[in-house]
């Protein structure tokens, strides 16, 4: 019997959430005023949770390491947000969104959580529109939709290529209203460095004021971790420079199980890397695959000629191009899920068909779409005799209206004009499906400590579908946590203020201080980035898009080695009591070095392939990921036992009552 209790409510799947809400404990409005909640992170999950909890009457303290909640990395999400509204009358429904998400996650997500996500998805759109989020609309004034990978309906709501920005500004505005009222106390430029547990319950955090360097104690009746994902363990990813695992990792070290760390999403459409100085990778939204076609040359000779600059992509005729996704997956074509598209790109590049100097790039081509839209537009405005050039001009205007900011972003980075020549793209680390283990109520294995958004593991299984991260973040924060947290807090109405003078606070602060002092006093010679880059290279080469037993074993050894050298030889300039970005990086990289090890250990134990986790030993004859449901239909939840790499594995068995387990096919 597993020690993990997922607390999935009884009853048919469509009734579970409603029944649960009906039976759950609630805190009366007068008592909510006596209860404090800490929210760490102000992205979509944290921002929406903080605002909603404050609206309910709780006293919220919110923390962000950036200078404003509006800068959390949710802001960079481009393409859109899914919701089962069925505005397009194309047969969408709660069940279909649920089904697509479980299948897209390669049957490694918890059914009940995913169903709830699909169920509340429509409320999110209503809520955001009420807040003034300017979604794209059609000429009749109603909301527009587009399609994302892995689904056959149009259910994605969007605001050009800045959907995450608009949704986050919506949550930020809801927060601002509560900050103005004094119901949220906002701590900007603060980083959580430890969780404080009193009598077995989460009762506060230790945070560092990043401007003054001061360590602060903050107490509360519950702590919500919404600190995002850990893609930066790879050093290069589409995450922001500051995105880190520290808050999640510190609660792991205090007793929260860490689930499925090896489930990482490698996004197929990112701008390829250009040199060693590269600090991050930039995503080109999946929405581009609505209109862009992905290809490489059919022959190795042409690929070589393109790499040497002897030929240009536009020199190749249709017959000389291999639209490999359309060839391999005729029914989903360019809109296969991300894991499938990424592996297909790697397969072509490994076979020598890559199109940039490094051989690690494929084309994303808009010329067909430009001409198609141009012809449509010419018909609409009555220009029946429009020339090719005129049609192209009209088509480019349509593409610009849809993706203008993405095309501009591409051009600024690469100095190439994507209206005239195809974009070059390559997969990059983008999102982590794994994270802190939570039950149906989003509570971790530490009572009173919750995890929401990308920081938890619950909804995306082994692969997340496009436009579902925004949905999950806001679902957790607006519509799940505000209900479920009351069930726990109902027992805390008589507790009263929690003192920060308790010995537990003192001990936690002392530990944090010693940790920081150790870095400042270390007489090393190398920068933090030096070690972070080395860790990233091991992760990408051996724990990246394709993994095998030998590589993973080597990776574990190498990461231990890097960690040892890091402690001996890292140099952190400056002092503790000032703004010190190098010190901030040092604690984050320290945690990445431990997480990286567990990540590889998790990948090693899971000898099947599923979603974003591809073990070379487990594939079909056609090179597709081959699951092993008999032995691996479980969530791997790791318990910290006091030393890095010595975590103990607990399994939460996954049962599928409403969806039949099948080999995923997008052909």
């Amino acid at each position: 019997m597993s020690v993990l209790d997922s607390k999935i409510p009884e009853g048919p799947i469509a009734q579970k959430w409603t029944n649960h809400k009906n039976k759950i404990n609630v805190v009366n409005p007068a008592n909510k005023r006596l209860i404090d909640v800490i929210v760490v992170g102000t992205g979509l999950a944290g921002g929406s949770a903080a605002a909603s909890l404050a609206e309910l009457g709780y006293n919220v303290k919110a923390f962000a390491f950036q200078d404003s909640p509006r800068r959390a990395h949710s802001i960079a999400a481009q393409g859109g947000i899914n919701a089962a509204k069925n505005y397009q009358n194309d047969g969408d429904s709660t069940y279909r969104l649920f089904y697509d998400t479980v299948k897209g996650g390669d049957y490694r997500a918890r059914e009940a959580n995913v169903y709830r996500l699909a169920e509340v998805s429509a409320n999110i759109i209503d809520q955001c529109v009420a807040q003034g989020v300017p979604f794209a609309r059609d000429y009749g004034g109603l909301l527009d939709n587009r399609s994302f990978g892995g689904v056959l309906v149009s259910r994605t709501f969007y605001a050009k290529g800045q959907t995450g920005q608009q949704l986050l500004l919506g949550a930020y505005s809801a927060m601002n209203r509560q900050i103005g009222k004094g119901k949220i106390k906002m701590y900007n430029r603060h980083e959580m460095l430890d969780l404080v547990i009193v009598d077995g319950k989460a009762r506060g955090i230790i945070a560092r004021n990043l401007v003054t360097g001061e360590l602060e104690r903050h107490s509360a009746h519950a702590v919500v971790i919404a600190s995002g994902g850990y893609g930066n363990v790879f050093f290069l990813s589409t995450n922001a420079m500051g995105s880190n695992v520290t808050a999640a990792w510190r609660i792991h070290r205090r007793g929260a199980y860490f689930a499925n760390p090896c489930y990482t999403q490698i996004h197929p459409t990112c701008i390829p890397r250009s040199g060693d100085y590269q600090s991050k990778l930039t995503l080109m939204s999946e929405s581009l695959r609505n209109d862009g076609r992905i290809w490489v040359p059919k022959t190795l000779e042409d690929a070589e000629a393109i790499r040497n600059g002897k030929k240009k992509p536009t020199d190749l005729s249709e017959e000389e191009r291999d639209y490999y996704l359309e060839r391999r997956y005729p029914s989903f074509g360019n809109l296969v899920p991300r894991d499938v598209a990424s592996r297909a790109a790697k397969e072509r590049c490994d076979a020598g068909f890559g199109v940039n100097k490094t051989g690690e790039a494929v084309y994303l081509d808009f010329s067909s779409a430009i001409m198609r839209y141009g012809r449509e537009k010419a018909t609409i405005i009555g220009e029946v005799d429009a020339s090719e050039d005129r049609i192209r001009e009209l088509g480019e205007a349509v593409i610009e209206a849809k993706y203008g900011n993405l095309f501009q972003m591409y051009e600024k980075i690469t100095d190439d004009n994507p209206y005239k020549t195809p974009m070059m793209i390559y997969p990059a680390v983008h999102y982590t499906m794994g994270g802190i283990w939570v039950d149906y109520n989003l509570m971790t294995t530490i009572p009173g400590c919750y995890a929401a958004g990308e920081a938890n593991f619950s909804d995306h299984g082994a692969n997340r579908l496009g436009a579902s991260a925004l949905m999950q973040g806001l679902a957790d924060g607006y519509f799940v946590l505000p209900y479920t947290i009351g069930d726990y807090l109902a027992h805390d109405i008589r507790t009263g203020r929690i003192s920060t003078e308790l010995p537990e606070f003192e001990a936690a602060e002392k530990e944090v201080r010693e940790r920081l002092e150790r870095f400042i006093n270390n007489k090393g010679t190398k920068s933090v980035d030096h070690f972070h880059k080395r860790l990233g290279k091991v992760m990408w080469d051996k724990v990246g898009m394709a993994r095998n037993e030998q590589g993973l074993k080597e990776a574990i050894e190498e990461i231990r080695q890097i960690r040892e050298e890091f402690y001996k030889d890292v140099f952190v300039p400056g002092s503790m009591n000032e703004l010190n970005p190098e010190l901030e990086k040092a604690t984050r990289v320290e945690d990445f070095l431990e997480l990286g090890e567990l990540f590889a250990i998790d990948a090693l134990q899971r000898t099947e392939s599923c979603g974003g986790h591809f073990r070379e030993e487990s594939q079909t004859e056609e090179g597709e990921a081959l699951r092993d449901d008999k032995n691996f239909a479980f969530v791997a939840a790791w318990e910290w036992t006091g030393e890095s790499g010595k975590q103990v594995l607990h399994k939460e068995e996954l049962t599928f009552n409403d969806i039949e387990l099948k080999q995923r096919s997008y052909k």
Partner: protein
Amino acid sequence: MKLTLKVWRQKSANDKGRLETYQLDNVSEHMSFLEMMDVLNEQLIAEGQEPVAFDHDCREGICGMCSMYINGEPHGPDRGVTTCQLHMRKFNDGDTIYVEPFRAKGFPIIKDLVVDRSAFDRIQHAGGFISVNTSGNTQDANAIPVPKDDADKAFDAATCIGCGACVAACKNASAMLFVSAKVSQFALLPQGKVEAKQRVLNMVEQMDKEGFGNCTNTGACEVECPKGISLENIARMNREYLKASLSAE
């Protein structure tokens, strides 16, 4: 490329501050400006010196965190970009580049190139929202059609990233482009109209309290804005403000 950098160094808010000169020898034209700063910092750390503190996060032009005043312009010589999107191909071998923090009374310096822009947050607290609670039972998102033109204009205003380049570019250190973008977004949408009067009055009042100057129609803000927020928004805010001030309530 070889470059000479003149970088503003200031230990803390109370320090006087000065320009320091650094030489960089191996700069690639494909680097972003911040990657060039990373190289400088690695060099400083290798020499045992303190690296230059600067704000940055997403490095793709959307979080609004980066804030450098480069050769006399916020976000440097390119148009429609933030500092993180500025690439070294916009400079020439042998150039001397001046790097300073955003300068404005409303943005006190914290350290080196890092400034405090919390005034922007406080202006938003005063009214940058629509007063709706989270509700699983609000009306359907399509219940109120919004003319596409209004929706598009509201969106254009809403793309403001709150970086503060408008303030840094303005000779009056005015925040009117920033404030008007938020006021416009909501004023253009039916959902925002209910509170429009109170919103504009409150936000402008807070803006004045924070010590930002007024608009004298120079238009430098619009030129330097990485998101191309239009001056029309300031005109709209002035109309909204006038309307709100004159109508009794």
